[in-house]
């Protein structure tokens, strides 16, 4: 089978690219191992709602049309939203087609699937940034009596035995799951490493409104001082609760969740926690204050102070004077450990030599050094918002332009666009992480 471009993955990123290629009349297919929105259908927990508000899902030729722009989508709503996008743009999707290898040919690429092989001139990797949950190497396995679960395997608290739960990781996923499990009556211990605290609503507006309006989310990859760091920062501690409450370590403490340091190892059945909790919390509070200060300055400059509530700050994060450094897991009633420790993409099937020593695709804003091979959906691929639903549009526009000029044998045009304007103070606040 032959086509001009193969897009791998029918999540929102692959679909956004499909729409851009269709607009340019570039013949293509979208190969999907499962169904449209497969990750949302198979890898998310039941109660999850998007942490980005409804309005923040602008895709090329599509967006939110309902009457609750500030609400947060449930999983069925998210799936329906992405499925409808696929219909609206008439994406040429081949469902239930898993790509097993991609390699270079003389004229482009051979994309091998379990439904035959495609030959194409260009390939877009839109297989997602969150394929494989990371489980830290602790030097010793956990006691056999304890069940372990990664977050894509987690659905709801009823799936867990009654008894204590150790949730490892306190970014968006970890804090949301800890909150829900604690409320189910299972006492939660939360191992807290690096994390970023954020108020859900600040001065009367959703924090995502601030980051969008102030240009933080549009910040480009070629504008940041430490791109490697920017690509590795954890997700913001946010949740899309209908009541718009802030979910942070203080709110978890109030519920009765016990906070401990980063899980640093397991020895003789005992979990060992890092003594760095105080610093992790201090770093996070300071980072939040820096960002809010910079946003306040931006609001003043933009003449918005009149329409916004006055600035306020959250209480410092409270932690115990001497948080426990160790825990006999079985002895203290822990029955389940949940790894909310992040994800890595899976490119084990990619036979084009563009992987670095850690198995990540080397790229310059999504453009790999293998001509005609593109990447989408990774954190800070081209912009701070690249991994968000709302970020795929701009990236797909840039990269499809580059892809088109590659097909026409032209020089690259998309690589350097004008950087988005962002105040120096904001940039500095974000850079010092």
């Amino acid at each position, binding site marked *: 089978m032959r086509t001009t471009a193969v897009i791998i993955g029918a999540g929102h990123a692959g679909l956004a690219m499909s729409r851009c290629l269709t607009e340019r009349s570039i013949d293509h297919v979208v190969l999907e191992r499962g169904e449209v929105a497969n990750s949302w259908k198979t890898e998310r927990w039941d109660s999850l709602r998007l942490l980005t508000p409804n309005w923040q899902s602008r895709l090329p030729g599509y967006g939110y049309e309902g009457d609750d722009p500030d609400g947060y989508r449930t999983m069925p709503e998210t799936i329906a939203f992405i499925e409808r996008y696929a219909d609206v743009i008439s994406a040429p999707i081949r469902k239930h087609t898993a790509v097993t290898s991609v390699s270079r040919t003389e004229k482009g690429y051979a994309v091998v699937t379990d439904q035959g092989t495609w030959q194409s001139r260009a390939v877009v990797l839109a297989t997602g940034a969150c394929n494989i949950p990371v489980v830290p190497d602790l*030097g010793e396995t956990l006691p056999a009596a304890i069940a372990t679960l990664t977050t894509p395997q987690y659905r709801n608290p009823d799936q867990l035995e009654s008894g204590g739960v150790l949730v490892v990781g306190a970014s968006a996923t970890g804090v949301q799951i800890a909150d829900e499990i604690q409320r189910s009556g299972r006492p939660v211990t939360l191992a807290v490493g690096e994390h970023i605290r954020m108020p859900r609503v600040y001065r009367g507006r959703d924090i995502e409104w601030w980051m969008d309006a102030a240009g933080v989310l549009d910040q480009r990859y070629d504008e940041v001082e430490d791109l490697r760091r920017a690509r590795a920062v954890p997700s913001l501690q946010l949740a899309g609760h209908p009541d718009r409450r802030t979910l942070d370590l203080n709110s978890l403490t109030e519920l009765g969740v016990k906070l401990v*340091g*980063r899980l*640093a*190892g397991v*020895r003789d059945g005992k979990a*060992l926690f*890092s*003594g*760095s909790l105080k*610093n992790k919390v*201090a*770093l996070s509070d*300071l*980072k939040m*204050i*820096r960002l809010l*200060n910079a946003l306040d300055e931006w609001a003043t400059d933009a003449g918005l102070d009149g329409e916004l509530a006055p600035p306020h700050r959250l209480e410092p994060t409270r932690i115990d004077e*001497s948080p426990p450094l160790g825990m006999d897991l079985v002895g203290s009633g822990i029955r389940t450990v949940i790894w909310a420790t992040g994800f890595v993409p899976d490119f084990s099937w990619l036979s084009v030599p563009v992987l670095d*020593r850690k198995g990540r695709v080397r790229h310059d804003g999504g453009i790999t050094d293998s001509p005609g091979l593109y990447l989408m959906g990774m954190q800070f691929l081209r912009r701070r918002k690249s991994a968000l639903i709302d970020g795929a549009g701009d990236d797909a526009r840039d990269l499809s332009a580059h892809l088109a000029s590659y097909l026409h044998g032209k020089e690259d045009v998309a690589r350097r666009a004008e950087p988005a304007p962002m105040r*120096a103070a904001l940039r*500095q606040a974000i850079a*010092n992480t």
Partner: protein
Amino acid sequence: MPTAKEKEVKNGVNVEALLGAREALEKAPQAAKFTWRATNKWVNGTHSQTAVKEFFGLGEGQSHRQEFTFEADHPEIFASEDHGATPVELVLAGLASCLTAGVAAVAQMRKIQLRSVSATLEGGMDIQGILGMDEDVRNGFDGIKVSYKIDADATKDEIEALVAQSQKRSAVFDIVTNPTNVTVEVNK
């Protein structure tokens, strides 16, 4: 007013060299593997002497400009002769030096001029642990308190962020806050 970018900041840290090293090591990560070494000799009683000179890094043997030695002993209330710092005080020294070096490096990166930096460290310890009197008491510190006094061209929050970032990047902070496998063997 000069902007942060143009302001000249001198903390005696060569940031360009550090960033250059990071870039070079990205291409040759093997060279980033270092081994630090120390030799120790018993002198008498609880007095011993530790020396450092050679270490390994950047793919080859390296050496300090000269050998440095550290005396360690215990004070007279432990019926010792007090020829040097206690080993646990040397740990405090290591932590302090590491954090302070980090403060200077981070300040330089963030274009913050330091005028003075001093720190006081306290490690609490219940010596029933080392004396074997109570199994429930650990040998080591039950906690370490570090307090910094920093005079710099920066706001209070910026200074706190310097100290926080320095902890985040500190080797000794990591060593004291996280478990490390230690293998001790005896050779004839």
